């Protein structure tokens, strides 16, 4: 069978494609689609830019988690400031009361469930006022019925109050 030169050259079985330069270069050129200028068309430039892009991708993996955590902290802080309490106080207070809601959930509540979030801030204010700590520039907490249970540890004896 007579083929034109390009087709004859490209007619390579699959097992040898890993060593064929066309396929090795096409690998990087696929990732360089929509890059600026000749970096999207020429292999010698695309290789450099694609490798750098992958390095950015690897570096962002750890940074992404930190940024999301910072974002959650910022949102919780802003929502708590509307109730006169610092954001760190809320997270610390909930931890001491053994309410195990994480930051992702707290920022969701702050955005979508404002009344539920207010009840959490009231709990934290009551907890701290029972210990004698008053957050600055805070309104007095709404009346919270605790029956002395916020401070008491959770032991099998008083399990009935928690279930």
């Amino acid at each position, binding site marked *: 069978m007579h083929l034109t030169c390009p087709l004859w050259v490209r007619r390579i079985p699959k097992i040898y494609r*890993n060593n064929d330069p066309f396929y*090795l270069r096409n*690998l990087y050129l*696929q*990732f360089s*689609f*929509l*890059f*600026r200028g000749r970096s999207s068309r020429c292999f010698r430039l695309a290789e450099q*830019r694609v*490798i750098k*892009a*992958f*390095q*950015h*991708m*690897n570096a*962002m993996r750890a940074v*992404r988690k930190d*940024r*999301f955590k910072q*974002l959650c902290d910022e949102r919780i802080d802003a929502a708590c400031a509307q109730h006169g309490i610092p954001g760190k106080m809320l997270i610390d207070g909930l931890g001491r*009361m*053994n*309410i*195990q*809601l*994480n930051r*992702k*959930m707290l920022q*969701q*509540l702050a*955005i*979508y*469930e*404002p*009344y*539920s979030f*207010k*009840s*959490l801030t009231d*709990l934290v204010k009551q907890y701290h006022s029972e210990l004698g700590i008053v957050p600055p520039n805070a309104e007095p907490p*709404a*009346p919270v*019925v605790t029956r002395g249970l916020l401070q008491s540890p*959770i032991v099998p004896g008083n399990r*009935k*109050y*928690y*279930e």
Partner: protein
Amino acid sequence: MQLANFTLHRLLSPISIRCTPAAVINRTLRSSPALLGKKYAKYYFTPKKIFRKEEIYRVPKTQLILPHERLDPLNIPEPSAPTATESGLLEQLASAVNHEQSTSGRPFAIVHLVGKQYKVSEGDLVQLVGKSLLAELGDELVLEKVLALGFTDFTLYGRPMLSRDCVTVRATVVEKTLEPPKIRFEFRKRQNFRRMNIHQTNATVLRIGSIEFNKPAVQQAL
């Protein structure tokens, strides 16, 4: 190095490759769209779909907000102040629990599932990443680790969890698939070191059915 056969625009969205906006291309080619083939026209004339930043700043919509449920952010009505007496508050809560009807409003639950927490209500989809459960398609599950429950007039918080008598959250397994492929490329300069790994993790999708609330158990606790 072998490359799986997948489309490029799926790769570009979750990873931060530096792409220039197509403004320059658009300016020169907008006058003559016929020059572009149909294949690439959509990439040049719809840049917003591809050149978008990472979506960590997007808050996921885990719950549909119906029009009558939306709050006006400037005019949020303040809740009425509760009475100062202890018994008064407990009575209010008990009456709220009594009058709670599942038809009014959408209850939400915060559920601990596979090491993560999800805020969940009826009809939500939850994707569990990296895990293939032993449950098969169509199996019904009961999510027992409920950290919080919310209704229109009151919320319940567990320390750390609510008891199983109070609430049952039902879910069904809808889908068991693979995620889109993820790339890990290691490069060390001047050392002739390049490694490319492409991996696909399992993903299961659950559809949350109903959140059932057991009044007598809660009133006993009160």
